């Protein structure tokens, strides 16, 4: 789960990480009042779950009230298109108004769960403001890295090594270690999957400040953070993905026209690949999971049918824990309730497959059956083209 910059900064502030004074605003008037309170110059920043806002015109430095009003009016409601939003862009629904600051240096500080070492890795670089992937691709030697031992936690010597490596002055080492230690505590105690301070700025008076902040949480750990769960902003998510999440379904919207319903994430990805290999394009990734019941299958089917781009539906099930008869029952119920408006191709294998096939046949619904995954994908592609 991702959160907005202003939410990330609120969380960081609680852990003692230095962030600029600022306020989140939902209207132009609120933004103007916040700017007046904070004093000029200040910065008006679009709050969307995507990077590249500055280049897209979503961040403006303002020097007085009229500039603040103009900037807020322009950004709020605007559709920002950045390299992370996709071509359709994202509508800006809230702003962050922040005090301006006098910057001397821009650095990078990030933390991720590193799969290779199985530990949390801290990365720092002198290339602030540049995406870390780009630094990694072109000048990997500029990335300093420390791995946190889960038993000992982030150790001060690791902070010092990073701080000296960044070329900070003797006076800045102590505060920098404090900054990093606080960020590491926030990361671990909040079950983050990613925390990025880019840029981490050194002010002209020598102080360190998190000028931008990006935080993502491990979805699997949200059960123990009810306060963080509240930070979810559904307007930043695809409505079908939100609906799917309510039913504990794993759904991701794609731009094709063949709706896919599969059990198991690997098989669901493989089904998308097979559709592509058969000359079609998948409309979605959908994993109904191993423990699916009739209600869940019905919800999944409804989500597929709600996608206007879908021209055919391909159900590919290898019943293990999920029994084929349960799947078939859910599909028949959903098709009866909602009406089968597009061709439906079903490939079923595994536990109780004969009962499942019988339920589908007895339903008298217009269902195209397939003998295996490739056969099903081909039939779905052909049906969608009609």
């Amino acid at each position, binding site marked *: 789960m991702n959160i907005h910059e202003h939410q990330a900064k609120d969380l960081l502030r609680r852990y003692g990480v230095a962030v600029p004074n600022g306020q989140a605003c939902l209207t132009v008037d609120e933004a103007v009042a916040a700017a007046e309170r904070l004093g000029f110059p200040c910065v008006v920043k679009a709050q969307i779950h995507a990077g590249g806002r500055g280049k897209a015109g979503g961040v403006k430095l303002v020097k007085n009230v009229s500039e603040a009003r103009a900037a807020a009016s322009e950004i709020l409601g605007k559709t920002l298109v950045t390299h992370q939003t996709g071509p359709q862009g994202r509508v800006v629904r809230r702003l962050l108004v922040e005090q301006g600051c006098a910057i001397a240096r821009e650095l990078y500080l990030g933390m991720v*769960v590193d799969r290779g070492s199985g530990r*949390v890795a801290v990365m720092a670089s002198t290339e602030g403001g540049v995406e870390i992937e780009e630094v990694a691709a072109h000048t990997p030697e500029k990335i300093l890295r420390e791995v946190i031992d889960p038993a000992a936690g982030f150790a001060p010597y690791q902070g010092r090594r990073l701080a000296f490596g960044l070329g900070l002055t003797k006076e800045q080492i102590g505060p920098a270690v404090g900054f990093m230690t606080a960020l590491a505590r926030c990361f671990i105690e909040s079950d983050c999957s990613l925390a990025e301070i880019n840029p981490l700025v050194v002010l002209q008076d020598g102080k360190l400040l998190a000028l931008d902040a990006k935080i993502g949480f491990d979805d699997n750990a949200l059960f123990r953070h009810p306060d963080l769960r509240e930070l979810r902003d559904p307007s930043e998510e695809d409505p079908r993905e939100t609906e799917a999440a309510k039913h504990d379904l794993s759904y991701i919207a794609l731009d094709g026209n063949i709706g896919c319903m599969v059990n198991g994430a690997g*098989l669901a*990805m493989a089904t998308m690949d097979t559709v592509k290999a058969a000359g079609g394009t998948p409309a979605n990734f959908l994993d109904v999971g191993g423990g699916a019941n009739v209600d869940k299958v019905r919800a999944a089917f409804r989500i597929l049918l709600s996608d206007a781009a879908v021209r055919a539906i391909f159900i590919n099930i290898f019943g293990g824990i999920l029994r084929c008869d349960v799947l078939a029952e859910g599909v028949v119920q959903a098709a009866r309730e909602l009406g089968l408006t597009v061709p439906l191709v079903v490939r079923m294998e595994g536990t109780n497959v004969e009962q499942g096939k019988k339920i589908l046949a007895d339903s008298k619904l217009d269902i195209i059956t397939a003998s295996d995954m*490739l056969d099903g994908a081909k039939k779905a592609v052909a049906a969608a083209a009609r």
Partner: protein
Amino acid sequence: MSVLVDKSTRVLTQGITGSTGQLHTRLCREYGSQMVAGVTPGRGGTDFEGIPIFDTVADAVRATGANASVIYVPPAGAADAIMEAADAGVPLVVCITEGVPVLDMVRVKRFLDGRATRLIGPNCPGVITPGQCKIGIMPGYIHTPGKVAVVSRSGTLTYEAVHQLTLLGIGQSTCIGIGGDPIIGTGFVDALRLFQDDPGTQAVILIGEIGGTAEEDAAAFVKAHVTKPVVAFIAGQTAPKGKRMGHAGAIIAGGKGTAGEKMEAFRRAGVTLAPSPAELGVTMQRVLKEKGLAS
């Protein structure tokens, strides 16, 4: 021959009183696995269909000589369950639980450092040596004893591969689902090492997916150490960047972990790639014929 589990494996179930634990303990016993004990704190002294239940893993091991554990404990308690089993000296721990927080696994990995316990999973279907021992949630009937090993990050895609092999008359030595999470116990390289050393395994099917670099590491290991033929498939060739595809570990992050990179690594390592998941079985059949290996 096989790896990890066989007829002599004595299995205990952690979380035996939950509905999933009950169902799969029953199914594994029906398959022929020796299900010797269950653990649910506070339920010690009772039994599940004749299988004695203990309060702690240590008690269960002491009383029954269990040498493998399977975990169905819910996500919040799964990491603790793994550590309890390791502390009791259980050599093989299979964690089926999906949704374990990743930082819990960071701590578990640290805890397992220097201990003799081998962890499979979490978020996996388990391990099966057909005809001998099934530990996990895979449908037993699709398997048949034989000489092809299967290792995979995906559950249902493993079933797909196994089913295709069985229909072609190609049996399996041992199938290991390593799990779809970013941090897991046994990885591809560990599994390949076991299969390379197993005289009962002639060839290996490896099923990877997008995210991380486990497949690239596996490819390097195959090139350096594996003499047996390997057939591979990578799921997620059409997956968009930056989206988690169901499995917590299946994500192309920062442009890294794409199916294309992984397939290229395997190609360079001399691994045969199955053109589609529907052709895993026939690809293995062709490779076995080319190498003059009986199926």
